């Protein structure tokens, strides 16, 4: 049961954590599945969480990185007003771009929250014993993990997602470029919303090829844009049937 913040406020309750859904989770069909999977896990554990629903706006990351500070400030200031009005202290999000902006950029505008990425959140749930993962469905199968730039290189989180994959008993095979040297999927810096500039090939194809080269049957990702980019890259290689792209939360959900 997904409740909004206004529903919580109406009943005079405060959730443990706010789940920041983001534009992708709210509107993109593929990312909606991830949002639902993550909510199912939260429900399974019995976490009292809320979403902002219609009161949530884009964090402004793509506008800021495309150079449009004005639009960024408009979105950020409205979001901070909403979050502060509800007295939000703790936020979890399944999008590393939202995560980065909420965590690193909102403080300068007056928005101070404890922000974690959902891979960190799930890892903490497992560590505290609240969430038990059976493993099994990926036992012995090859999985490769794609570091998103905004969780990995920019925010230094390389271990939590890998620890989650470790609970699946899968065979984690690293790509040639991983962790601090991970290759971007091509979507960051607002590239998601325009075509690549002229060049020899698309960035997502380059990364999808690298993932396929590991021989993995599945690519684990932690970002809705990476999932779109890698899926498109696999389609370009006609590999979309043999290699699947999952969000980490989906892999966990399959194993509880």
């Amino acid at each position, binding site marked *: 049961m*997904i409740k*909004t913040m206004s529903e919580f406020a109406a009943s005079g309750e405060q959730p443990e954590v706010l789940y920041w*859904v983001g*534009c992708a*989770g*709210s*509107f993109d069909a593929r990312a*909606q599945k991830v*949002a*639902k999977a993550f909510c199912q896990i939260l429900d399974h554990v019995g976490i009292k969480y809320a*979403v902002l*629903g*219609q009161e*949530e*706006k*884009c964090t*402004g990351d*793509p*506008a*800021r*990185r*495309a*150079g*449009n*500070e*004005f*639009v960024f*400030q*408009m*979105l950020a*200031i409205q979001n901070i*007003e909403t979050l502060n009005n509800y007295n939000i202290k703790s936020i979890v999000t399944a999008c590393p771009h939202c995560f*980065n902006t909420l965590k*690193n*950029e909102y403080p*300068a*505008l007056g928005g101070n929250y404890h922000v974690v990425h959902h891979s960190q959140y799930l890892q903490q749930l497992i560590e505290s014993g609240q969430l038990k993962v059976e493993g099994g469905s990926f036992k012995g199968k090859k999985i490769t993990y794609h570091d998103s*730039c905004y969780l990995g*290189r*920019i925010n230094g989180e390389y271990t939590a997602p890998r620890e989650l994959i470790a609970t699946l008993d899968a065979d984690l095979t690293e790509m040639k470029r991983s962790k*601090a*040297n991970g*290759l*971007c999927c*091509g979507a*960051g*810096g607002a590239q998601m*919303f*325009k*075509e*690549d*500039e*002229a*060049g*020899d*090939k698309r*960035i997502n*194809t*380059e*990364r999808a090829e690298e993932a396929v080269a590991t021989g993995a049957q599945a690519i684990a990702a932690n970002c809705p844009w990476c999932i779109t980019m890698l899926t498109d890259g696999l389609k370009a290689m006609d590999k979309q049937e043999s290699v699947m792209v999952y969000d980490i939360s989906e892999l966990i959900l399959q194993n509880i």
Partner: protein
Amino acid sequence: MASIIFILLASAVFYFAFKAFYAVYQNINLGKPYEWKGQPKGRIKDLLLIALGRKKMFDRPLAAFMHLFIYVAFLLTQLELLEILIDGIFGTHRFLAPFLGSFYSFIIGLIEVLSLLAFVATLIFLSRRNLLKLPRFTKAELLGWPSTDANLILLGEILLIFGIFTMNGADHLLQRIDPAHYPQVHLPVSSILGPLLFHGLDTTTLEFLERWGWWQHVIVVFGFILYLPYSKHLHIFLAFPNVYFRDPRSRGEMENMPAIMNEVKSMFGIAVSDNVDTEEIPVFGAGDVTDLSWKNLLDAYTCTECGRCTSVCPANLTGKKLSPRKIMMDVRDRATELGSQIAKGTSTNNDEGKKAIISDGKNLFSYISREEIRACTSCNACVEACPVLINPLDIILQMRRYEVLTESQTAEAWTPMFTSLENQGCVWQVPQERDAWIHS
């Protein structure tokens, strides 16, 4: 006589070098103020580990060790250079030898061994550039002068090392002929090379060779000092301040723009706490080097064009025009161009606003195309790759801000994104409500 020539030469070299280095300092100061303060302990640690210890170089071990030989040889040679200065001025020979005794032999011996290793490293570096043609050394932005610049320094290294071994080789033989003038110093490399090369030469020839080697050493060093401020090799000095003054912000944070924040806040009727002077409308983003911070310009002059950034840039790897190294080179070249115009009086620098009134009608966009800055994914791979903490991404993002906020232009596909963000608070134009997914 030799002393007088030496003193005149050294004075001229230091005069012209000072002028040129001061010009670089002034060019860096064309940049805007920059908030770097805080984290003093972390800064010292980075200075020791990243700048002095070259920690990040070891991500690529072969290059790191080759570079280490040249680097340590260079650092230790400064001691020998000090002696050369003294000997040159007073006409002495190995002035420090009697004072330091066996320690002198140790130091000079170490320098000899390191010089030999540096020689090997230099040959490897030359072949990587000219024979193996490593991709990052043959990119478009390195064609012409930048390649020549790199090769010139490597050739200078070789001349320098030849000078040292000619001097020491002859010295080793002369120590046996004329011990009164040539103090006993054990030279581990030259005691083998000297007899091998100069065996059977008479005393006069040996004395001439010793002087020839000494002067070759001196002249290459003087040439290097004069050449440095015009070359990419400023990193040998600037790497240190560049690491020390590193950006205190986390990688994920773009610099806030209080003027715009306050404008938007008052638009929403929110009280603005910190009063920002709104009288003078600032330039938003960076259209020219005077809009960048002095740290951005220090970055540019620190860059030694190694190309690690470009070799990991996803845009460059897939054939786009963007090359983070080229961004740094362009910023430096533009700063140098503007600086020389100001020096000549064809452009003026208004001290108060640090805004140069530029008469040449050029700006950063005359060097860097829109296609380049629009190809960036902000992935930070270039930032991660730089051994001396240069940040090309910061400049790219400031130029994007200039495009949108000052020039009102942007990539075609970004305009509808801005519109939906403004109207619907979503990156796409969407028909349904934001919470529709909950009920679907």
